[in-house]
């Protein structure tokens, strides 16, 4: 298994349909707001949670949850900037 350090979770707010599987699978980092949409804990995913985070990403029915490298800017997908604005 490749060791990837410094990843963070982001939600694509357009794709998310509040299914809530992510919060079931990763309650350590994801809680749901009153409408069922995820609130993701900011910052790097701790190594002991990275497997759970990957599982939550894979379980999202609408592919709205992403693990992205915490960046120096270059590798961050454009989706990230949208996410920052929403928050």
């Amino acid at each position, binding site marked *: 298994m490749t060791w990837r350090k410094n990843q963070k979770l982001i939600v694509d707010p357009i794709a998310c349909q509040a*299914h809530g*599987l992510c919060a*079931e*699978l990763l309650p350590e980092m994801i809680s749901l707001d009153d409408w069922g949409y995820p609130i993701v804990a900011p910052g790097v995913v701790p190594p002991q949670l990275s497997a759970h985070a990957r599982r939550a990403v894979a*379980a999202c*029915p*609408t*592919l709205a949850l992403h693990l992205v490298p915490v960046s120096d800017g270059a590798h961050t997908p454009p989706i990230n900037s949208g996410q920052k604005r929403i928050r």
Partner: protein
Amino acid sequence: MIVAAVNSKELWYLTRGSGLMALVLLTASVVLGVSQIGRLSAPSMPRFVVAGLHRNVSLLAVVFLGIHIATAVADPFAPISAVDSVVPFVGSYRPVWLGLGAVATDLLLALVLTSLLRYRIGYRTWRALHWAAYACWPVAVWHGLGTGSDSRVGWVQAIYVACSAAVLVSLGWRLTTRWSASDVAQRTLAALGAALVTVGLTAWALQGPLRPGWAKRAGTPTNLLGGSTSPASTTTTPSRG
């Protein structure tokens, strides 16, 4: 090898049994998939469990389909080639009904492959392709009833009825929950389609495979018909199975 070691009658029974198992698993998969998209959950059955079951039951259905096909091809009784299992309507053994099985197989493989590659394909495309599940299931049932050597056996019919009831109930639930004005037309159309398919399949089954003499009308090669060599006949020699 293994195939040679196994008596051909056992292969033939394995074909039929694994086909029925695949139907039951496909039914479970459809019901779980519908529950998932309809956001069904319970304290003892959270969403991720429904999702995981849907995935794993579907993969298990593929395994049983693999056994179903492999044994049907390996079995020397019915002249079924590997090509017949994926290319519809070209075989010599009950071509139409076997062809429907090939169609269902192709659809199921497409469903599984696109789901495994969901990230590459993208959500919208995947979702559109996944609608094929609603075609795959009835085509599989049609194949089962049409090819099935067991369509006139009581407990097999009970399985068909139970599976159909399960799918229809879940579909009915799906079409009546989370009602919004925007999708009335779509849902009415879906309900009409489901009703039409149900009535059509039932009427056809009553006219066709549920009546005597279907084996001949289904397009079984004549040299395989009749007498104790027929796989449909219940006269079996006690065997190792």
